[in-house]
């Protein structure tokens, strides 16, 4: 991923319609952002459409980037995730209304549960909070992974993990609480970043 400082310097220039800065932001982040969209949509073509829409948005709303609210990469990931989530949900409505709901959801469920879990585990290792997050049950971590990497809502997670809706909501909530606590503890351990 590109350095946040570089992006933080480029985005205000994009806000002033600096095309060269815009291209630099695109080149530096497009591969990572396409990866994020692809995890959610599981379709390269749709992920590329989302990436394009997201960058149209970046061009028009770079002035809305505020480093005191969130870092530049977070801001970009957020635009892409939101667009991908919207596209995912719009697509689902379309499919459900045009064809009878079949076993499609269940057919992909096994794979869906696997990959996000691995991504989450790798992230936790990288963040050095595997031990802390290990205090959560496997299902709680899995629910968090499905929501974050796949853009699933509670009902979909419940279906994928074959658990009651109320339980899944509690898992996600607990997963988020734990993530917050573990990140804060890791921050204290490391000391403030330079």
């Amino acid at each position, binding site marked *: 991923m590109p350095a946040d400082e570089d992006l933080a310097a480029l985005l*205000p*220039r994009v806000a002033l319609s600096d095309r060269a800065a815009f291209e630099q932001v695109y080149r530096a982040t497009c591969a990572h952002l396409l*990866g994020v969209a692809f995890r959610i949509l599981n379709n390269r073509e749709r992920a590329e459409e989302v990436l*394009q829409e997201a960058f149209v948005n970046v061009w028009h709303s770079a002035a*809305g980037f*505020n480093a005191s609210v969130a870092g530049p990469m977070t801001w970009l*990931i957020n635009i892409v995730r939101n667009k991908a989530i919207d596209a995912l949900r719009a697509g689902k409505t379309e499919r459900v209304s045009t064809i009878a709901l079949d076993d499609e959801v269940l057919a992909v469920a096994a794979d869906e549960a696997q990959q996000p879990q691995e991504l989450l585990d*790798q992230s936790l290792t990288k963040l050095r909070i595997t031990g802390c997050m290990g205090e959560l049950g496997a299902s709680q971590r899995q629910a968090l992974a499905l929501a*974050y990497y796949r853009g699933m*809502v509670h009902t979909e997670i419940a279906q994928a993990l074959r658990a009651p809706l109320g339980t899944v909501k509690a898992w996600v909530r607990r997963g988020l609480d734990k993530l917050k606590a573990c990140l804060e503890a890791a921050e204290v351990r490391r000391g403030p970043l330079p």
Partner: protein
Amino acid sequence: MNYLLPDRLDRLAREYALGTLAGPARRRFERLLHQTPAAMLAVGAWQERLASLASTVPAMQPSGSVWRALEHRLFISSARAASAPTRPPQWLWGLLSGRAFGGALAGVLLCALLLRLQPGLIGMEPESDVLPASYVGLLTDAAGTPTVLASSKRHGRRLTVKLLQPVVIPAGSVAQLWALPKDGSAAFPVGAVPVTGSATVALADTSEKLFFNVSRLAVSIEAAPAKAGDKPSGDFVLSGHCVKLW
């Protein structure tokens, strides 16, 4: 429902940031987000936490058609449309990108002078490319970084205030924009600088009346938006020249 109770706000913020907030509730919260700095900060904090999970997502190089489509949509088709530009034109970036404002300012003044002496130079341009007579202020921070752009048409009653880079505004405070007359008389309040993006400030009178004798603009941090007659309570955190573009 009161969304602004801290617990409820945080609950919604994290569900929104994660994506599990769906349907109409998601749309409602999105609207709230644009209006409420507290909601934006709560969401920002959660997005930051969650984004730390994104670093392990395998990168995928997009095909070249994505960039080509972007270029076409943003630059080529919009240039063809030849509608009145709503974004700051390219030349303005030239004014802002220079480290030394003085150099850029000299450039702008030279341009203005040239255009005045040689109006034919612009006669061949489409009308939308001609800049309206305006007052423009570029405020820099202590390090000289361009931070706030303020602009208003000469006879307009609205001032556009745009943030070029974030300004640290302590919670509960406002960044107040002041106009400093060149005769050294007391600064008068113009409006508040937005927390993000840009904002339009309604002026008490036309720019021409208010800014004709103003040579500088400055920003101070105040506990509340200043009213007519108020004085800056502390030092200016940003300041810059206010120039006439005609």
